[in-house]
């Protein structure tokens, strides 16, 4: 069994340093102001020259040294705790991409939010599909960057049920601040039923397409209900006439399969009027089949 969690660990270290810092700050400030008042020129016209005092100087070298070494040690041992994931931890793969998270569970289930069972340690294996992101869960005081081409990790003990914020903490481009998600801590029972259920969107002939849109983070910027998000809505897109800007010139195009495909693979080529070129290109990110699944689903969205 593990004892303690990262929240407490970090809070304790923080409190320890904070108390020392406040005591130091107050005593320094107080002494300074006291001197300024006491030895004011009016009260004390004749200064006294004191060039040094060996004992005093040794004291204020030695005492801070001891203090900082204590801080270091305390911080380091807390850190070691945070870096040693328990054996029985549930592992979840977390992938950051511009600008969404994808969590993949051991059974292959993927989601954009992190759902974990209450009371069971979780180990996150983190990487990135494009640039550097940072996976940050303030409530559990943990954070680690998602670096492309590398795997990093985090672990935590979700010992309180509820929903907690999950941020991207490393600047990653235009929508960095909307790369937010949630950690949802639910009782084991609820988790199990969610975990084993197959995600099927009802009423769609192309459930695969829906799933892909979620997984790839498209729905962070696009909606399926006609509302304009960061990007244009998918609703009624297929077969519409779209005004795009290409190479600085306006042009009208017909949203057919070829156009959609191009828009997904190389969004920078035709920019929809009124939007900016911020959509991440999917050329390295999606297979042919995946794209056609998505397009099939888009056709459905009348």
């Amino acid at each position, binding site marked *: 069994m593990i004892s303690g969690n990262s929240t407490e660990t970090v809070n304790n270290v923080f409190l320890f*340093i904070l108390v020392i810092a406040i005591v130091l*700050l107050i005593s*320094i*400030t107080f*002494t*300074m102001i006291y*001197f300024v008042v006491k*030895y004011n*020129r009016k009260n*004390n*016209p004749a*200064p*006294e*020259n*004191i*060039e*040094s005092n060996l004992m005093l*100087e040794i004291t*204020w*070298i030695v005492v*801070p040294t001891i203090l*900082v070494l204590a*801080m270091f040690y*305390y*911080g*380091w041992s807390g*850190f070691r705790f*945070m*870096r040693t994931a328990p054996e029985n931890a549930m592992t979840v793969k977390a992938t950051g991409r511009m600008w969404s998270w994808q969590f993949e569970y051991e059974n292959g289930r993927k989601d954009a939010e992190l759902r974990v069972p209450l009371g069971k340690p979780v180990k996150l294996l983190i990487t990135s599909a*494009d*640039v*550097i992101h*940072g996976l*940050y869960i*303030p*409530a559990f*005081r943990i*954070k*680690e*960057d998602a*670096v*492309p*081409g*590398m795997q990093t990790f985090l672990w935590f003990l979700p010992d309180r049920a509820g929903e907690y*914020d999950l*941020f991207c*903490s*490393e*600047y*990653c*481009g*235009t*929508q*960095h*601040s*909307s790369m*937010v998600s949630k950690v949802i801590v639910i009782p084991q029972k609820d988790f199990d039923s969610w975990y084993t259920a197959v995600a099927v969107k009802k009423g769609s002939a192309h459930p695969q397409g829906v799933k892909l849109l979620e997984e790839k983070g498209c729905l962070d910027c696009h909606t399926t209900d006609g509302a304009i998000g960061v990007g244009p809505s998918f609703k009624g897109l297929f077969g519409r006439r779209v005004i795009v800007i290409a190479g600085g010139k306006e042009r009208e195009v017909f949203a057919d399969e070829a156009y959609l495909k191009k828009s997904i693979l190389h969004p*920078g080529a035709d920019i929809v009027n009124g939007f900016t*070129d*911020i959509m991440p290109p999917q050329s390295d990110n999606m297979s042919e089949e995946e794209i056609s699944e998505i397009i099939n689903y888009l056709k459905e969205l009348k």
Partner: protein
Amino acid sequence: MQGNNEPKSFYESGGPHKGILSWIFTTDHKRIGLLYLASLFIFFIVGAAFGLLMRLELIAPGKTIVTASTYNSFFTLHGVIMIFLFIIPGIPVSLGNFFLPLQIGARDVAFPRINLLSWWLYMTGGILALMSLFTGDGPPDTGWTFYAPYSIRTGTNVSLAVFAAFILGFSSILTGLNFVTTVHRLRAPGMSWFRMPLFVWSLYATAWVQVLATPILGITLLLIIIERFFGVGFFDPSKGGDPLLYQHLFWIYSHPAVYIMIVPAMGVVTEIIPVFARRTIFGYKAIAFSSIGIAAVGFFVWGHHMFTSGISDTSKAIFSLLTFLVAIPSGIKVFNWVASLYKGSIKVDTPLLFVISFVFLFCIGGLTGLINGTLATNIHIHGTHFIVAHFHYVMFGGTAFAFFAGLHYWFPKIFGRMYSEARAKFAWFFLFIGFNILYFPMFILGWQGMPRRYYDYLPMFHELNLISTIGSWILAAGLILMFINLVRSIKKGERAESNPWKGTTLEWTVPSPPPVENFEEIPVVTQGPYKYE
């Protein structure tokens, strides 16, 4: 009120050129110092304007005044300008240029023409940085850290901004090698190492950091440009590169750079305290060596910016330990400053007022730096507004406050006039109050988890952000008052005598403003700098 036999001040004899040319082609260190001062001021205003705009955007969640990509270029330009154009050159190139030769009893710096070249490079870099706003495909949006691989992939005008920073680095190197040589070669007879004013010591330590650290920045930025144009792949994992190496290279420079910012500021503080306490400095040698100590240890702690980046845990532990060692020489200085007030005969004029607030604000910034440097806590607060608060406290509350202190302190020497004391104190009040209202809430926001470089934030962070934005206006009012007072006094202030504060260092022995040649007769130094017998 100059007597007939007094030599003409450096304002009156500008060398071979006339008018503006006598300034931009001057090799006189005093004129170059003033050129720099004016340019720094202009860039500071531009940077500050971005700061105010950012605060305005953050006044409420959601979009307030600008779009996300505009906001991103705001903090990038804000960071680039404040760091590379304001605070790194800052004190050394303006006050340092003006007073280093005067304080060591020299007629000029070792390489006057290189000094001028460095100003030209500075201006070139500055103008290029501003140009990156309006040219290319949109202003750069990487943050001042230019982290790869984002900085290589983004379509915005990063190359020009990076090139500007590269040139600014060059300018900084030239200043550094000039100062090292000046201190070694041009000290007046009798001015032994331990008779140098402590401001000179701090500039000397800084100059070495400039020489030894800046080239790493140079090559790193050059590599970004090469990557963008040729795609060599040094930082691109798909070609085998390692993005973390970029961060290593960047912080190898940029951590020492924070000591380029603070050490001269500490020098200014050390200069002012004994003058207004009318007593000698406490622990001269300890202060001199701690400048060198901070500069030296500062080279080996860069990894503390990368505790969550995925570097090895071994290196994290060592970098954290070394980070704490920097606190010790900083502490020595703080304690020595306080001790130098003991049994003095203190008059709290504006320079000392700024110095006292410096000590207070720097301690807050420094002590929270320890929270950053502690492994466990850093994990939580890295990349949040806690960090933003930390570095504004040390850079603005620290360096900039000391800069303002120095400006007031040396104002009569530079311009030959006094500023209005009452107005200066009034402005200080707004500055100090506004500063704390602006930045203190950020500590709390950061601890609550609000990430930095966020254009938009959750509603739970609203109140503190609102307070912070209001603080930014109070601070702006204070700054405007201060600048108006100073600028007005250049023409309208009372004439200043040559030594209004009764200082004991050499610059106070020459007329205000000083003559071109500084000293009619090179002085012979017979004692240490702070002798109030």
